[in-house]
């Protein structure tokens, strides 16, 4: 056996998992796709976020609490790579532009509070309170929910830092090595990729949207759904927005990232003028000062969703040692993937909440 674990996919999920496994002394190989293989990790919004996550599913709410509470530690560890990931956890906003949104938000937040046994902290702010914190906000925003537990990060720098950190711990990373076949032989797994054939005792599928198709080879029917989000990024501005919000955030470089749509368009990651218009309209409505700001780039990214939006962490029943990690919010969950999730993969004592993310839930 050449490796203890082969992680298939080197996106945010694969990189965090590989890093966590290496921290526990595993000999790990990461096989990743090509330069333009679909990658949510290079297209996302960079929020490390709990607001709204798991309001209708307590285990997910708890899992997000675990992840975001582990985040400061992860951020400290990654400093050794000297990649500045610009992680901040000062709190974040989600705006309401009408009474109905406010009502819905309020009940969502209180459901989330209940789901976390009161661990989730939040506050509903009316317009004048909000305006004290964000003077640039427009009158159209009637209020917002605020959680001091929310934050953001430079997701591209995070990916680089994880890639560097895992290699510093001895992980072998191989790009341009799409995996074609995985076969069980004599208690180990043989993985055939574009750059060769590799063996390991454990396999972790972290190939995002490709997990469905890879899992099939091993008798796992992982239901993955693609959902497009279009994102805009502006020219660099002098700092004006201290906090991230769900739709608008100013990055460490000064650019403003604006998102994001939810579209069911299959595997098309293009942009469309109509959606760009809607996104721009909402942003300008919230922050009129953005009206004269130049757009630098727009892109489409495909979210990796499951039928109920919650992660799937599943070990294959027919092929033990094969794990599938399929989830949205891989940025937020990075610290959980690099820690508790690895305990579960390695069969150590692990947090029971992880079992709540098996595919069994879809059988009922």
């Amino acid at each position: 056996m050449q490796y203890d674990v082969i992680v298939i996919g080197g996106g945010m999920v694969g990189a965090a998992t590989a890093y966590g496994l290496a921290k526990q002394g595993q000999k790990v190989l990461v096989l990743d796709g090509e330069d333009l293989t679909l990658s949510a990790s290079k297209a996302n919004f960079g929020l490390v976020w709990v607001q709204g996550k798991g309001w209708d599913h307590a285990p997910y709410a708890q899992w997000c609490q675990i992840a975001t509470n582990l985040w400061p530690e992860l951020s400290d560890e990654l400093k050794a790579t000297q990649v500045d990931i610009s992680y901040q956890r000062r709190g974040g906003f989600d705006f309401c532009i009408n009474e109905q949104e406010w009502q819905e938000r309020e009940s969502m937040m209180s459901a989330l509070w209940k789901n976390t046994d009161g661990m989730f902290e939040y506050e509903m702010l009316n317009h004048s309170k909000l305006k004290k914190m964000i003077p640039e906000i427009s009158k159209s925003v009637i209020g917002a929910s605020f959680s001091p537990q929310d934050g953001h990060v430079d997701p591209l720098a995070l990916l680089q830092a994880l890639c560097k950190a895992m290699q510093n711990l001895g992980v072998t990373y191989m790009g341009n090595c799409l995996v074609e076949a995985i076969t069980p032989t004599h208690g180990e797994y043989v993985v055939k990729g574009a750059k060769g054939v590799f063996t390991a005792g454990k396999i972790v599928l972290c190939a995002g949207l490709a997990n469905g198709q890879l899992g099939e080879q091993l008798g796992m029917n992982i239901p993955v759904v693609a959902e497009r989000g279009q994102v805009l990024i502006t020219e660099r501005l002098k700092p004006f927005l201290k906090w991230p919000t769900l739709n608008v955030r100013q990055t460490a470089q000064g650019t403003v990232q604006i998102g994001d749509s939810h579209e069911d368009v299959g595997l098309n990651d293009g942009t469309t003028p109509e959606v760009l218009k809607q996104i721009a309209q909402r942003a300008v409505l919230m922050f009129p000062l953005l009206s004269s700001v130049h757009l630098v780039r727009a892109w489409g990214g495909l979210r990796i969703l499951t039928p109920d939006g919650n992660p799937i962490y599943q070990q294959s029943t027919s092929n033990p040692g094969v794990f599938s990690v399929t989830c949205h919010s891989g940025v937020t969950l990075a610290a959980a993937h690099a820690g508790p999730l690895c305990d579960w993969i390695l069969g150590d004592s692990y947090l029971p909440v992880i079992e709540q993310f098996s595919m069994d839930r879809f059988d009922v």
Partner: protein
Amino acid sequence: MFKVLDDNHEFDTQISFDGKDHLVPSNITVAAAALLIGVKSIRETPVTGAKRMPLCMMGVCYECLMKIDGVGNQRSCQTLVRQGMVIERQIGATEVEAEYYEA
């Protein structure tokens, strides 16, 4: 370090460049006007503050970004001078100002 070749060109358009008034020919670009006036740089980069001048003059390199009539990061090589135009060097990132109202 640039001059108008044709003596018949009239310097009939008044522009303000970083607060100073200048007369330049009409129908020339702002970037050309900057070269004629002889400025040392038209912008400082938002990354390191390095000084820069235009590079391509055809709208593709974005090295000529300037603040023109109050709007930052405009390509001066694609903008013709106009009577009374107010041109400023682009120093670092653009500043946006909110129109504040009483909450």
